[in-house]
């Protein structure tokens, strides 16, 4: 059996300490044995590398499957544009309905009420217009549910991909964009969900309080 790397090291150290003269044959034997040891080491490393490469190939294959599952073309060219069109349609429908309702209300407000019968007939007509306009809510509700389904579809696939990539949510801090900076500096949050923003009563408390110390007390 060929000596291992540690044994060879001992032999070389021993020869150095003893300063014995070595023949060419001694050196050749030693070189052959060292080469044999290296072969075994390379063989072991080769197996490790092979296993690592197999694992990497496996990960890449899994990643390809996940990216394929994202169906990015379907997402980019169909689902997201469709969701955008649905939201545009919601905006248009609500605007159309609002205008119809406001026009009906304005006509009622400016109507001549000196003739009660004519006035009642006008009000009845305009009320029907208002009821008809309110039917937008059914359609917009359905459109918004379609958009929510698309968002859930995207969320599910991105969730699977980040799981496969083992990406932590805290990774990849993005730098603030110009638009984000503007929104931060101009305190633009947009509408809040019910219960998340302050109430008109709270605002009134702030404005009914002239002393800054009292205002500070409102915020604890």
């Amino acid at each position, binding site marked *: 059996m060929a000596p291992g790397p540690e044994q060879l090291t001992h032999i070389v150290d021993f020869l150095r300490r003893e300063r014995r003269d070595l023949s060419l044959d001694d050196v050749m034997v030693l070189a052959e044995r060292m080469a044999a040891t290296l072969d075994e080491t390379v063989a072991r490393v080769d197996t490790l590398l092979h296993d690592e490469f197999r694992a990497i190939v496996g990960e890449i294959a899994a990643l390809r499957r996940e990216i394929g599952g994202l169906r990015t073309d379907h997402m980019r060219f169909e689902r997201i544009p469709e969701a955008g069109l649905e939201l545009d349609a919601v905006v248009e429908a609500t605007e159309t309905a609002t205008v119809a309702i406001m026009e009906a209300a304005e006509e009622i407000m400016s109507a001549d009420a000196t003739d009660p019968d004519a006035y009642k007939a006008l009000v009845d007509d305009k009320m029907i217009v208002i009821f008809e306009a309110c039917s937008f809510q059914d359609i917009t509700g359905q459109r918004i549910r379609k958009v929510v389904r698309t968002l859930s579809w995207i969320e599910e696939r991105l969730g699977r991909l980040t799981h496969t990539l083992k990406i932590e949510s805290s990774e990849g801090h993005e730098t603030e964009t110009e638009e984000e900076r503007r929104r931060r500096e101009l*305190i633009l*949050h947009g509408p809040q969900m019910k219960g998340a923003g*302050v109430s*008109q009563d*709270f*605002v009134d408390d*702030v404005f009914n309080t002239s002393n800054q110390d009292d205002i500070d007390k409102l915020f604890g």
Partner: protein
Amino acid sequence: MALDLSMPVLVVDDYKTMIRIIRNLLKQLGFDDVDEASDGTEALGKMKERRYGLVISDWNMEPMTGYELLKHVRADSSLTKTPFIMVTAESKTENVIAAKKAGVNNYIVKPFNAQTLKGKIEAVFSD
């Protein structure tokens, strides 16, 4: 400062429907002279051409927001005393405080009703 129903009022909002709603509510309250602007820049231009008795402004508009408009108005000696009411969906505490510090006279959170608008206008002119 007394409330004068004949004074010109400037309504600033980038949403035409909201301008129409406020205009109608103001009409119901007796205000007939109502101008409109779709953002702070346009409003500031109009304010330099005409002296308004009251400005009712949204916050979130482009390119100039209502908050920026308010700061411009308070920084301009010829406009600084113009009563200014913010009507906005921006309902975070920091918005209310920032507006108050910038010198807004009152603040209405959207959605609002006619009674709230009336009450705030009266409050501004009773101070």
